[in-house]
């Protein structure tokens, strides 16, 4: 079986992560605490978090839009059209990297395979070992995932891992908190980091499944092609994106972003422009999980 190539280090019911997932910052729309199981993949040494099978709320609801008109009064409401309608989506269980892929991991991939990336920022200050790898081409992220025996998450998997089942706005809940992510303004005055932060520095901003940095730090590639109208016709069971599209979907926002772009439902496609991008990997959960 595919998963046998991994050395599974299963850690059940990590109390700390549960406390983080259910603690301060969450509001009434809170996911019921879920036992968290992790594994470590052999090739890249990445810790992966288990996300159980089941439904979750994907996209942006009418109620969210009303709220957004208050939070983002200067934004044209059409900005959120590509996130609508909100729908209940069923996903099979999967694993997702707990952290964004780091420079140390990405360089290990380059060294071992001789792969030459198209756009990887391998220069200071972006390339320190414990910083997330800035990988600006989707194909380079896919190549890494294949090497590691994994794949990029689908947009739906990414969003469920980020916001849990209850449709919350940010990974920690529905209240904006600038101290819970690497983001904001690029000054470092609020979050302590002028640019990207080393992975895992914001446990207070962890997702309901214990996944770090799902808001801020780097935008993240997912496997789906981007179609702004995809939610109008997407399947409600294990959606994998349109057949083709205008580039690939980006999620999560980066270190230079706040509020709007770091919402779990936010999706950016087409020409990413000056967005700073990284990624994390996912894999199917074996049936016995």
């Amino acid at each position, binding site marked *: 079986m595919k998963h046998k190539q991994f050395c599974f280090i299963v850690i059940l019911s990590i109390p700390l992560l549960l406390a983080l997932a259910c603690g301060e910052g969450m509001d009434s729309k809170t996911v019921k605490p879920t036992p968290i199981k992790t594994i470590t993949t052999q090739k890249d040494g990445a810790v992966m978090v288990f996300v159980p099978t089941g439904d979750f709320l994907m996209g942006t609801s009418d109620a969210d839009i009303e709220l957004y008109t208050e939070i*983002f009064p*200067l934004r044209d409401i059409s900005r959120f059209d590509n996130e609508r309608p909100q729908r209940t989506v069923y996903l099979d269980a999967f694993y997702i990297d707990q952290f964004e892929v780091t420079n140390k991991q990405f360089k290990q991939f380059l060294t071992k395979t001789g792969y030459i990336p198209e756009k990887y920022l391998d220069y200071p200050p972006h390339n320190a070992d414990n910083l997330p790898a800035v990988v600006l081409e989707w194909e380079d992220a896919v190549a890494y995932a294949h090497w590691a025996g994994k794949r990029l998450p689908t947009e739906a998997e990414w969003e469920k891992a980020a916001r849990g089942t209850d449709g919350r706005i940010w990974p920690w809940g529905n209240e904006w908190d600038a101290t819970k992510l690497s983001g904001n*303004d690029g000054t470092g005055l609020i979050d302590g980091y002028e640019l990207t932060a080393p992975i895992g520095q914001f446990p207070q901003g962890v997702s309901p499944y214990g996944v770090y940095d799902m808001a801020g730090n780097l935008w993240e590639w997912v496997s789906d092609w981007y179609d702004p109208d995809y939610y109008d016709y997407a399947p409600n069971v294990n959606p994998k994106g349109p057949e083709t599209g205008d580039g690939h979907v980006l999620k999560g926002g980066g270190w*230079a972003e*706040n509020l709007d772009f770091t919402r779990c439902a936010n999706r950016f496609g087409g020409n990413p422009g*000056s967005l700073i991008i990284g990624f994390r990997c996912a894999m199917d959960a074996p049936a016995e999980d």
Partner: protein
Amino acid sequence: MRNVVIFATLITLLTLSSSQVFAAGEVVIYTGTTQWIDKAPADEQANICVEMLDAAGIKNTLLTSDGDMDALATWMENATGDDGLDICVLYGDIPPTLYPQGNAQPDGSVAEMYIETTDGDAILNHADYMFWGLGNRNAEGGLQNMMDIPGIVMWDDNTPMIVTDKGKEIAPSLPEIQSDRPFHIDQLDGDWEVEVSLAQNEAGTRADPIIVRDGELGRLIPVIQTANGNEPKGAVAAEIIIWLMANATSVEPEGKLSTTWGNLKTVR
């Protein structure tokens, strides 16, 4: 006594005019490559700008194809040092013919030479990060090299911009926006200074739109740098250009002096 004051005023104006007065120049608008705005809305906004400039009698050229990159560079080279205040409008991308990609020519590019004469020439940019370049050609280095300010960046998205009194006067079409790539006033250095801030955050550290100028040399004008926004970029750009052409230039130094003299005589 009054005549003495008027004479002194004229001498002062004459002195100023000898070093600071420019001829009204031309405008070029390029939509051949765009970033953070699709080509169709960029063309739409560019045409709005063109109509307003035409109505104001300002000579302009619209280049809408990526095959126009060389023509754009030729325009810019011809506009450099021609004693006219010329303005180049970009929609989120700076073509490599103006600034070689990958920051391959950090100094002396066509674009940098253009803004380094006393013509006061300007580059006005919409949508994405100024000089970033399609496909991350230049990233942060583009702006830093063009301004010769190491470390200056244009991060800080979703920054609410409050229109200043001057902004209301210059650009009536300017709405309050959330800028995604505002200019960092607090990172200005060297001879660069704020000429006019049309909208800025409460702290006065971020601005969009803004006109910044390198002493007596050229200008950079970020205007509504937002991701996929549908703000009236074309109208606001036109209003800023019309204001700049009218207020930062004079058709002929002599003409300005005679007008001034005429006004003064009227006051008498």
